[in-house]
């Protein structure tokens, strides 16, 4: 397991929602969020917006880690996100991690999945395009 790079993974919004770093896997952060009233949607199921927030945060985290490996420091501007809601999320801990499909000079394309007990049974997946603005 790689050493955790010293980077800020969580936005004020992500911390406020209760998102936290779970572990590092394949040089990308696995994030989790525990069940709470703040992530609840209709009774008994997680809110799609909260799951989207977890997915997005995992996407930015993976991207920041990949850029840190090559010494790049950048700010991100979201271009778009497409979320597929695959299963209802139960009232328990949820995880998410992202895979960088393409890392370019100006944009990145990310594939993100969220799951609960079994990573093979994702509750949601997302594709994200992100604009990268290098900090010079």
């Amino acid at each position, binding site marked *: 397991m790689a050493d955790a790079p010293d980077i800020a993974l969580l936005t004020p919004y992500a911390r406020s929602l209760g998102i936290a770093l779970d572990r590092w896997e394949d040089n990308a952060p696995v994030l989790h969020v525990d069940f709470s009233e703040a992530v609840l949607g209709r009774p008994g199921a997680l809110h799609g917006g*909260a799951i989207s927030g977890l997915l*997005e945060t995992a996407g930015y985290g993976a991207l920041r880690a990949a850029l840190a490996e090559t010494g790049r420091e950048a700010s991100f501007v979201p271009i778009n996100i497409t979320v597929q809601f695959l299963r209802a999320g139960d009232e328990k801990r949820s995880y998410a991690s992202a895979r960088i499909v393409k890392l370019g000079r100006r944009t990145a394309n990310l594939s993100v999945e969220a799951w609960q007990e079994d990573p093979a049974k994702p509750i949601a997946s997302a594709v994200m395009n992100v604009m990268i603005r290098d900090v010079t």
Partner: protein
Amino acid sequence: MSDPTPRFDPSVAADFLVSRAHNGWLGMRFSDHGEDWVEMELPWREDLLGEEGRDVLASGPIVSLLDMAGGLSIWTRTGEFRGIATLDLRVDYTRPARERKSVFGRVQCYRTTRSAAFVRGIAHDGDPDDPVAHMQAVFMTIDKRTVDLPADRKAEQANG
């Protein structure tokens, strides 16, 4: 013929429906509606920022706002409050929101079938003609029955 369940009215029901759970945590509130669209407001708040040092709402809450406005637009168009679940949702962020501004999500339900509902909309920060984001989503009906709102809300709706 009497209809025991009054037609769904977002101007009465929306604030109650977003008063709890994730939507309540975000602090969403009703803004405006038409026959097949609903606009919800997400007031600016310090702990919902997307970037340290910039007073702009994160994109996550904007997805939540558009998702909720989308659900409300379906109930408004059909007039029935039913269990629905988001199947697929896309958001294009066309420009950053302005600092310390509320973001509004205005979503229209343009088509319903027996089990699916199609919605599209925008997020803006004051001027609907200058959106910060565009969205498109598909919802599935998960309960064929109309769900009754709590009794006090029904009475309010009936008195409307």
